[in-house]
């Protein structure tokens, strides 16, 4: 059996929850052992999580006892959950109920069980979590340990850190914050409140928060909240990932950090690389605005041209390739895939287009695939089109746009509101991200393919 991911042998407090509960590392060890005693090793468990103690305990229990969790948002759409259950056949489901969290039996009859899980498979995460694609990323114990060690090194984390949760635990960036801080014996401040709520800031201040992470939209909100005027003496580090931040905001936060003696760390990653692939060292934040930095310790970037040949000259755009021990095993699209081994062998062709400057710093310039990042969540444009066409068979549609603002063109002007609501509900994202526009017809070529370049996007 795989050895435990987290060594919980620290003195001190592991978790403070915003309901007032404090859990020491010794308590956490005991709680996770009790949890794991109910679930046999190499079981598949769906964890329906929020930023609360029950979710954290179950997650740590799974990773320390050879139990493989699929992390899902506790607010997941019922239909979508059912689809995941039918496809992957979990042994158990850990979910919130009116009486607190409960461990339910999953689909576990003898002739309807998932196949034996690959021995190094540790964790499953959804790729987008939104459009309902049942595609999962398979992460190994080695992946998690390697990526966590890199993060601890470049962020120079130690047991005095007190990160506050601003991102969900079923989201790879949020989870990487949990992983890296539990590894060094730090104290995680758990809250489900958002930065737009008074309770969040009270908890932040009372608990002496030292760091938080945010997607680009988080930083837009902080800017609106005139974050720079706040006195936050305990704060040491702000990290940013989940999409490219506007250079103007990057500049603003980097200047604030410099002025106040704090660190602003821009990073880049993907679920397919466990979490992180790059970071911009905070001391370079101001002279490399717009850059996502350099490869994390233990990783290596390269750029390739359309024929797959390495680009060695600076300032030429190519597809970004990453090599490192945190490159995940591969995807799963059905239960049988859970027994598959490593399909990537440490190399990830990212699908992102990037360039490298003469100092070796990387800049993301675009994407090869058709997806947007909306509030840090990957939303596939083709999948969104399929979803809409499936639910509204009498109209035609095409999706495009930019990060945080998807444009959805439809051929039935009476359905604008319904489609906006439908997409918001299915993606679990705020409806304001979707701009639905009626159009007479969707431009197509002779073979019926949508001509996205001819859509009136701007």
């Amino acid at each position, binding site marked *: 059996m795989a050895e435990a991911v987290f060594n919980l042998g620290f003195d001190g407090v592991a978790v403070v929850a915003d309901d007032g509960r404090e859990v020491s590392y010794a308590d956490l060890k005991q709680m996770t052992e009790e949890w794991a005693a109910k679930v046999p090793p190499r079981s598949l468990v769906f964890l329906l999580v929020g930023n609360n103690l029950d979710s954290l305990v179950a997650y740590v229990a799974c990773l320390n006892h050879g139990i493989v969790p699929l992390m899902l948002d506790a607010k997941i759409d019922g239909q979508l959950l059912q689809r995941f259950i039918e496809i992957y056949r979990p042994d158990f489901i850990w979910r919130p109920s009116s009486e607190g969290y409960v461990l339910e039996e999953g689909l576990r009859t003898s002739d309807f069980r998932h196949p034996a899980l690959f021995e190094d498979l540790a964790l499953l995460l959804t790729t987008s979590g939104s459009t309902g694609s049942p595609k999962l990323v398979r992460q190994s114990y080695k992946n998690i340990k390697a990526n966590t060690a890199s993060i601890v090194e470049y962020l120079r984390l130690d047991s005095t850190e007190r990160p506050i949760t601003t991102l969900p635990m079923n989201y790879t960036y949020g989870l990487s914050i949990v992983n890296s801080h539990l590894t060094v014996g730090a104290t995680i401040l758990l809250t489900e409140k958002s930065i*737009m709520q*008074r309770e969040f800031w009270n908890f932040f201040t009372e608990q002496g928060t030292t760091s938080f992470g945010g997607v680009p939209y988080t930083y837009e909100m902080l800017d*609106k909240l005139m974050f720079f*005027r*706040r006195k936050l003496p305990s704060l040491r580090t702000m990290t940013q990932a989940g999409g490219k931040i506007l250079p103007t905001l990057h500049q603003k936060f980097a200047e604030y950090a410099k002025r106040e003696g704090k660190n602003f760390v821009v990073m880049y990653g993907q679920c397919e690389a466990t979490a992180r692939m790059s970071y911009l060292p905070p001391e370079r934040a101001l002279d490399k605005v717009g850059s996502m930095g350099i490869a994390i310790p233990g990783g290596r970037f390269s750029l390739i041209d359309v024929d797959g040949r390495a680009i060695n000259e600076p300032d030429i755009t190519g597809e970004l390739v990453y090599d490192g021990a945190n490159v995940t095993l591969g995807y799963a699209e059905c239960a049988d895939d859970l027994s598959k081994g490593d399909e990537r062998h440490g190399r990830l062709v990212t699908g992102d287009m990037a360039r490298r400057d003469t100092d070796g710093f990387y800049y993301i310039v675009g994407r090869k695939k058709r997806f947007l990042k909306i509030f840090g969540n990957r939303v596939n444009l083709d999948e969104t089109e399929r979803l809409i066409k499936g639910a509204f068979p009498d109209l035609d549609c095409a999706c495009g746009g930019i990060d945080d603002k998807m444009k959805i063109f439809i051929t039935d002007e009476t359905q604008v509101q319904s489609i906006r609501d439908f997409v918001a*509900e299915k993606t679990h994202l705020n409806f*304001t*991200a979707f701009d639905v526009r009626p159009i007479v017809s969707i431009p197509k070529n002779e073979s019926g393919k949508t001509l996205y370049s001819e859509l009136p996007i701007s």
Partner: protein
Amino acid sequence: MTNIEKYTQAFVNAFGVDAESAKALKYQDIPAWDSVGHMGLIAQLEEQFGIMMEPDDIVDLSSFEKGKDILATKYGVEF
């Protein structure tokens, strides 16, 4: 439009709800009122009343009722 109509309209626009259900709303009651929706609501209120809200007031605005108090006491909006 009266001030209360303008105020209610800001919620209707920000969250895509009807005027009646807007009046009972609290933060996170509906999926649309999350942090993103909150930003939209603040933008609507600032536009409707021609004001710039202070950060403290933005994070205190936790319900329809609370928002009315804040606008009345801090921004001189009479309801």
